[in-house]
């Protein structure tokens, strides 16, 4: 009875199976599972149309017509996916749907299909895909590709992929396996170590070799992770530095407790948004340079707002720190709500130009381009700021006014103007920080709030009135924070840094690098 049922079932299934064999494309019009299976079947079918069809699926250009025929959309027309012949699709096309399982299947399939591509970058990508998927079925293709490959970097990638696939299958000999372990040890990154760790059911000698290889990779990784931690710390430090640089002028040099400092940063970020919108409409070809354009504009916008604030509000409150604090706090709320009314409460999309997205692997550390750009930008901003203070007449007058106001006035310096310009400079620098922060944080009316406490922390820790102190303290706080974070968790790390800072200020109330001399007493 049961046998009969199985037989019946097989009979019922037979046409479906036969159809799938005749036409590996059929599944592409079906459910997610059918699509994944069809992709895997196509990849090994040897069908000449397989590669373009799967590539089109990956790019979202594969469509299915109402009669289940498949079409690849190209510029100015459609091509039948089965035959490769151009034609007119019958009826409305719907895209072949994708979920993560389908995406994985296409990636694996493209791996073995594109090993022989003429483009070296595509071949490298194919080898990496096979390494990730550990696709045993790809070994013969890899062997053929290796025989032809001349580029040494891609050869290594292919050998690593072959080693990964070989170790994951169960056909290879012990000697081959040992060689494969050696290849992976030489690769020496997390992926290799994880692959070695996940191996099971290997012969004893291979298992032992894998264990030693893993240990040696782990030692290397530890060194690298230290370097990586320093990079993370530097990158957080550079963000803190950018946010605090303007405050180092307004609070550090002028002594104004400016709670609206964060809003100057926010205005800079919104300027970036406006610049991007404008460039997208009027100069789409130069969109990649939008951030460069935004930097001076953000400086001007925040600087002008800063000067206006100084002239209209702060100059009446010099020498009254409490009132300044309250007035600028109120101002910060006003600015936030004003931006919320103009631009809306939701986040604005500031896009990252191509040259700033992505990451590269340097040895064992991953360096993301946006963070690297921000570190460089912070260094440039600090250098420019110091140059202005040191080498320009404005800088000279600023220093003169802050060191001895009455003497400066007696020398003919218009001190009220210098106050306004100094405040404008500090605010403008904050605006430039906003351009950088728009790349890593939300452009929302609350953007500045998140940085105000950190900025004051940096300036106070570094020593009020000392720009170098600000640099050192920002980098130190960044690095300490990033090394504490994995140990204590993000929340506790922040608290610990704050506690350490309070203890430090108790011991040295003037910060790391206190100003010395008569200027301090003035």
């Amino acid at each position, binding site marked *: 009875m049961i046998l009969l049922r199985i037989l019946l079932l097989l009979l019922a299934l037979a046409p479906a199976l036969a159809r799938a064999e005749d036409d590996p494309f059929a599944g592409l019009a079906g459910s997610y599972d059918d699509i994944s299976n069809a992709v895997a079947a196509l990849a090994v079918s040897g069908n000449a149309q397989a590669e373009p069809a799967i590539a089109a699926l990956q790019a979202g250009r594969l469509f299915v017509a109402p009669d289940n025929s498949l079409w690849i959309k190209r510029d100015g027309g459609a091509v039948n996916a089965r035959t490769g012949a151009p034609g007119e699709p019958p009826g409305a096309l719907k895209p072949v749907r994708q979920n993560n399982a389908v995406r994985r299947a296409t990636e694996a399939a493209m791996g073995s299909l594109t090993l022989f591509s003429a483009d070296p970058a595509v071949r490298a990508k194919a080898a990496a895909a096979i390494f990730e998927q550990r696709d045993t079925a790809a070994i013969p293709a890899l062997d053929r590709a290796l025989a032809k490959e001349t580029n040494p970097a891609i050869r290594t990638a292919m050998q690593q992929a072959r080693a990964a696939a070989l170790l994951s299958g169960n056909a290879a000999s012990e000697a081959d396996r040992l060689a494969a372990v050696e290849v992976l040890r030489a690769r020496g990154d997390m*992926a290799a170590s994880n692959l070695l760790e996940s191996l099971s059911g290997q012969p004893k000698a291979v298992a032992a070799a894998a264990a030693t290889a893993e240990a040696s990779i782990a030692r290397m990784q530890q060194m690298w992770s230290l370097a990586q931690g320093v990079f993370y710390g530097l990158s957080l430090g550079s963000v803190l530095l950018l946010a605090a640089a303007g405050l180092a002028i307004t609070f550090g040099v002028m002594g104004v407790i400016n709670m609206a400092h964060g809003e100057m940063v926010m205005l800079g970020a919104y300027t970036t948004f406006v610049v991007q919108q404008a460039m997208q409409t009027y100069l789409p070809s130069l969109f990649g340079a939008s951030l460069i354009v935004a930097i001076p504009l953000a400086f001007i916008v925040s600087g002008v707002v800063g000067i206006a604030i100084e002239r209209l509000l702060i100059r009446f409150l010099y020498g009254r720190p409490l009132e300044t604090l309250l007035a600028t706090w109120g101002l910060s709320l006003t600015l936030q709500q004003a931006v919320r009314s103009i631009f809306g409460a939701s986040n604005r999309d500031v896009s990252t130009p191509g040259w700033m997205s992505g990451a590269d692997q340097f040895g064992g550390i991953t360096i993301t381009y946006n963070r690297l750009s921000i570190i460089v930008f912070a260094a440039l901003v600090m250098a420019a700021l110091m140059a202005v203070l040191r080498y320009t007449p404005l800088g000279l007058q600023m220093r003169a006014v802050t060191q001895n106001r009455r003497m400066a006035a007696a020398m003919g310096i218009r001190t009220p103007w210098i106050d306004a310009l100094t405040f404008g400079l500090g605010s403008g620098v904050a605006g430039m920080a906003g351009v950088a922060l728009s790349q890593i944080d939300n452009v929302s009316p609350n953007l500045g709030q998140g940085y105000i406490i950190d900025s004051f922390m940096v300036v106070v820790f570094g020593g009020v009135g000392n720009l170098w102190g600000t640099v050192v303290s920002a980098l130190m706080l960044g690095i300490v924070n990033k090394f504490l974070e994995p140990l204590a968790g993000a*929340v506790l790390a*922040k608290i610990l840094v704050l506690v350490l800072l309070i203890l430090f200020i108790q011991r040295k109330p003037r910060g790391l690098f206190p100003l010395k001399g008569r200027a301090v007493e003035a």
Partner: protein
Amino acid sequence: MPSFRTWLRGAALGAAALAASALLPTHARADDTIKVGILHSLSGTMAISETTLKDVMLMLIDEQNKKGGLLGKKLEAVVVDPASNWPLFAEKARQLLTVDKVAAVFGCWTSVSRKSVLPVFEELNGILFYPVQYEGEESSRNVFYTGAAPNQQAIPAVDYLMSEEKVKRWVLAGTDYVYPRTTNKILEAYLKSKGVADEDIMINYTPFGHSDWQNIVAQIKKFGSSGKKTAVVSTINGDANVPFYKELGNQGIKATDIPVVAFSVGEEELAGLDTKPLLGHLAAWNYFESIDTPANKAFIDEWHGFTKKPTRTTNDPMEAHYIGFNMWVKAVEKAGTTDPNKVIDAMIGVAVPNLTGGIATMMPNHHITKPVYIGEVQGDGQFNVVWNTPGTVVAQEWSPYLEGSRDLIADWRKPMSCGNFNVKTGKCGGASK
């Protein structure tokens, strides 16, 4: 300067008279309108999410008035701004109930704001409709929860990852406050009950508005490269999501390697983001804008017409308000009055269509039945539904996976009328110590 003083007095009197005359007609009008309170932050951190809900309530009230109002009266919206300030929520709620005398309040987003207004609603016997997915472990006579309980969002999402993506290792990442902590506690217990080992669960909390994710994403990457399929279950809330996803993209973590399923990221949150690097990351909700039903299409068209912005997205809590408002209208019509006690009794069992082609029913535990959808992020900021429950799911307000809440049930029908009835001890009043 006597003349100036008399002038001043005259002016003050005049102003008072003007104010009085301006006030009088509103008092007269108050009798033939029914007031509906809207308690959503329009400024401060939560404005990003809550402003939309205020707008959708105004639209629903407007629409109801076009249909002739309720019980022959026009509805009148009373909008207050609690400014993302939790104690202010309680003050504004008190103002709505005692000064404005509203018939029902639609509001709150964060759990802490709900907890802050809860005693006010219980003391003054008001009605609150709460539209956001939350951690459960609560049932009040005066609150109707139209958002999802954990078993209507979190648990089905984990089930999906387990069965469809074959996930074996789990990162539970959340913002450090009550909703993620409770949800993660439930999820951890649930995963362990499914045989997941301790070392395959990583729990991570970050502060509100966390923006530097480099370390944590690197940690996730490391945790996820052990050869076992890994997924991130994210209860990260609000603004912190954007830098989190950006960092994932930058460090090259794709959804095909380590998928992230989020419970607080919807269409609204993706609107400020380039979604191409996020392709395939997941979200679990009870509604997606992309779900193709006639009711949803009509709702979206109306929303675009009302806001005059054809690109404005809709999202899950908006649907919750849509359902809650329609349920309240139906219950008031059934009770024939806006008297809170009668409306609260009439609410149970009210069923209205939701926007995804099903029916939402108010259950005796003051939660509603909901379908669960899992969607994958698309390049255009929308979600593509890849899985859904066959029917609707009844909320478990007290999670069966937590010690202490396991034996509790809520049933607001007479004679039980209890939000935390202990079935073991047979008493109303929570877990026995």
